[in-house]
């Protein structure tokens, strides 16, 4: 496993942010903004690319992320690392872009039909529905092993591609996340059917 500290070069991000806030669009402020954001160009672009799998679209998304970051930087209070704050912007931006796109359902690894049996746990029903999220969480916790749980979560809630899930979870089996998601589908279907039989008695 590669060390996650790899991109953390020793630099004082808090000082750069203070300069940006104090100097705004002056030469000093812009220089500080460039210096702050430079190491994040690659991670932001790659995260966007994971979602859209297209260079030009990934650039458009990444531009939007950096624009939002620059416009909101005065509200950043340093209670988290800048990297996490930026990741929240990237993640939300990619999610909203993918939700607006026409969904392509892959019957082997998507769960809408499985969760149709349990409409309260169906994340496709209403993604902002906290109750649906909690129900889904409880269901997959009770039914699936840890890797399957995370793969299902990434697929259903974070709308990630099978390839992205394989890469993020570092799944080494030949079929990657596809095999894991198919297995999870079977288990969830069986668990929901068993629960229905139980309720009918």
């Amino acid at each position: 496993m590669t060390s996650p500290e790899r991109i953390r070069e020793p630099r004082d991000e808090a000082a750069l942010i203070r300069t940006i806030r104090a100097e705004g669009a002056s030469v000093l402020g812009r220089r500080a903004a460039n210096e702050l954001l430079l190491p994040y160009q690659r991670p932001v672009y790659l995260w966007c690319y994971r979602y859209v799998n297209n260079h030009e679209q990934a650039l458009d998304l990444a531009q939007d992320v950096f624009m939002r970051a620059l416009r909101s930087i005065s509200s950043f209070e340093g209670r988290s690392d800048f990297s996490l704050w930026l990741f929240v912007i990237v993640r939300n931006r990619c999610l909203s872009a993918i939700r607006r796109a026409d969904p392509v359902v892959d019957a082997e690894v998507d769960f809408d039909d499985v969760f149709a049996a349990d409409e309260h746990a169906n994340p496709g029903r209403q993604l902002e529905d906290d109750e649906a999220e909690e129900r889904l969480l409880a269901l997959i916790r009770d039914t699936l092993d840890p890797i399957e749980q995370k793969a299902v979560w990434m697929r259903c809630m974070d709308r990630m591609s099978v390839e992205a899930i394989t890469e993020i979870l570092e799944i080494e089996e030949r079929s990657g996340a596809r095999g894991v998601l198919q297995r999870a589908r079977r288990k969830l279907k069986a668990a929901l059917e068993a629960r229905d039989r139980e309720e009918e008695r």
Partner: protein
Amino acid sequence: MSHTCREDMSGFDQLLKLPPGHPNRKVVEDCPRCGARFLAYRKFMLADDLSGADTKAAQRHLSAFIEAEAARSLPQPNVSKQTAPRARFAFPQLRWVVPVAAVLVAVAIGVWRMQPGADRAPEVRAVEDAASIELLQVQLMNGVVDLTWEPVPTAEEYAVRLLDQSFAEIRRAGPVATTTLRVDLDPAEGVRYCQVVALVSGDEIAVSPIRRLPATESR
């Protein structure tokens, strides 16, 4: 070790600094929701190469973008350092009210921050509120760009920024009170990108993402 599943990602930055296998990190990784998000954040930070992605070209493009955008998005520095003459206090007998109120507010903020989770949680949600305009259509036909966007409730009017390949503003079209605008383009201008801005009394209150003009004309 118990784990309280969190709906946001607060604290993930600190967890990432712990070595893999650390009990505090493991307990989060074991939760389906937190684990999925934490591993995603970790992958974001690793920034491993992806097949088909052109990171070198992306970095060149984004460097130019950030350079230009910082000048537009960051607040203008104060031009004048002169301070206004001090206003005379209208009610000298109430002079103590302001410092006392400031102390009370500071104490209230301090107490609030002592609540578990209050210190970090809002930070990772704050950017959600950033105002933005959704572009519904950018079409190019016979040298005319046709733009349509979602309305911004408080906007009085809108303008369209036309930018060159280094994201510098060439000119603005508008303002208009509608949410659609057709702009004639002169090829000699070199317009490559456009952006809608929402205005109130001439001040920007929201912007759209910057969009590349379509390379080929729509039919």
